[in-house]
């Protein structure tokens, strides 16, 4: 396996976990969160600070990163889950802008626009993933484990209640399901998985800066969930594969990397418009953001 293929496997694995966690809140809970990318960023920055600045081992830094993102998700969720669909998206968009400014300007901790380098590779009990291939195996294994846990959760009564609340919060409340409690918990769980994806991202790339968690990344993630299909466990996997592989064709064109990045964003934006117009439930999804 070439270095490029190994890197692609790592990125696919990370984004599948990230998209699956957004699918839990957006597809099953009806809460499309623009803050998900900054929760991904919190996981990445937590791991980067702990391993690169404080020199802690990866195996200790990883769970702390997950807890950090989950705790912040609990705080954001406690504020925002009271809001309905489009209000929720706007409120989480403002959280995104706030945290993005913290990433970009809190220089002693995040390095500001210079970012943080020298982030530890995945390691445990004397073993360390030094090559791209080892990182790809570790990341794919972690993603597989995460998807298994999320898959089990999606079949649980908890998520069935969440779906009922998404479809009719008043009716679900009438049969004893507290909408705010379910929404808050699902948001916290999704945030923790976003934190895990962020920690895996930081340890794979070895360097992070605020651009990796900008609004452009949210549009990509949103396109993954919308095109793949929300409200179905297969949606994030299909969406990630389609949206990762579709712009690969741009590499064949004689254009600069900056132009290709802009062309990708144009493509993702148009895909969102097209999906909402033609097939809001995406390729394999069951929820059409109604």
């Amino acid at each position, binding site marked *: 396996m070439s270095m490029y293929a190994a890197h692609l496997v790592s990125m696919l694995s990370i984004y599948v976990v990230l998209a699956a966690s957004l699918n839990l809140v957006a597809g099953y809970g009806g809460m*499309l969160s623009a803050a998900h990318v900054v929760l991904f960023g919190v996981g990445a920055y937590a791991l980067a600070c702990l391993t690169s600045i404080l020199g802690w081992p990866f195996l200790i830094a990883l769970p702390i990163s997950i807890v950090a993102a989950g705790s912040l998700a609990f705080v954001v969720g406690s*504020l*925002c*889950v*009271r*809001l*309905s*669909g*489009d*209000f929720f*998206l*706007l*409120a989480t*968009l*403002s*959280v995104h*802008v*706030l945290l993005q*400014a*913290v990433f*970009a*300007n809190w220089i002693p901790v995040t390095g500001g626009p210079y970012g943080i380098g020298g982030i530890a590779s995945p390691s445990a009990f004397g073993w360390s993933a030094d090559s791209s291939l080892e990182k790809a195996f570790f990341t794919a294994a972690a993603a597989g484990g995460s998807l298994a846990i999320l898959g089990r959760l999606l079949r649980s009564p908890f998520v069935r209640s969440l779906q009922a609340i998404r479809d009719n*919060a*008043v009716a679900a*409340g009438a049969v004893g399901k507290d*909408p*705010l409690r379910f*929404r808050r918990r699902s948001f916290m769980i999704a945030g923790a998985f976003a934190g895990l994806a962020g920690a895996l991202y930081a340890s794979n790339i070895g360097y992070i800066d605020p651009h990796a968690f900008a*609004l*452009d990344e949210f*549009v990509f993630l*949103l*396109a993954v969930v*919308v095109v793949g299909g929300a409200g179905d466990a297969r949606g994030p996997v299909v969406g990630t594969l389609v949206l990762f592989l579709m712009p690969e064709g741009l590499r064949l064109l004689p254009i600069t990397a*900056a*132009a290709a990045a*802009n*062309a990708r*964003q*144009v493509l*993702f*934006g*148009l*895909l*969102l*418009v097209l999906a*909402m*117009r033609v097939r*809001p439930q995406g390729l394999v999804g069951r929820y*059409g*953001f*109604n």
Partner: protein
Amino acid sequence: MLQFVFNGISAGLGVALLALGFALIYRPTGVFHIAHAAVFTTSAYAAYWALHVYPSMATAGIASIAVGCSTGLMLEWAVYRPLAVRQASPLAVLVSSFGAYFAVVHLIALVAGSEAKTLGRGLASPIRFAGTLLTPVQAGQAVVGILGMLAVFMYLRFTRTGQWTRALASNRTLLLTLGVNEPRLRALLFLLGSSLAAAAGLLTALDIGIHPQMGFGCFLMAAVAVILAGPDRFMAAGWAAVGLGVAQNLALAVLPAIWMDSIVSALLLVALLCRREALVGTLPSLGDSR
């Protein structure tokens, strides 16, 4: 201190144009038009290109209004109207608007480059007013802002289509029973709203220059003003924008400018959380709160 207040009034009147344009679209149609920021940006770039072809302010003004109005109408016909026909949810409309914003902005970056540009007006001699110094663009921003607010007031108060606009915001079903052509009224509102955004885009371009992401921060401020103004109140959005402009400039006296977008985002979050009708349980959404 007085200098900060006058700077704030001038900047606030510029944002008031954007806010009134947004309110003219959002209140009657229920479309939370994030792509309004893209209309603002395209107008600013149109002024930049027009000034390069023929260096005259009249050319820049005509080009920016023509391009802004065309972009707004194109978005209505290609993105929002089809969703309105199939009665898509406000969340689906919001996702489409988000996609359209990103597609347009990155198309601009693809064509014109991502770097910031100035309109090459050079350092203009300042105007002395009440012991403060204002640039000619700031003075123009204040004059055009006041004229724009007056024009919107006259339109809403003294024209038949203005009455229909208020009626559409208040009771759509009743208005349609009177035989009003809703698609034409919507097109007119997008035309008017986009022309106001274009004027704001032109003035901002002359003041601080242009870059592809310039519209988002200004749009967030306009959205905060419209949400703070409350439902069914058009002109209050303009006054709220002026108040926000003053508050933001006074905050500059104690906080670095890098935190300005964060302050606006925090205000948006607070404004959303304080809206009773946004809460789960009553479950109305942006589109329903007309």
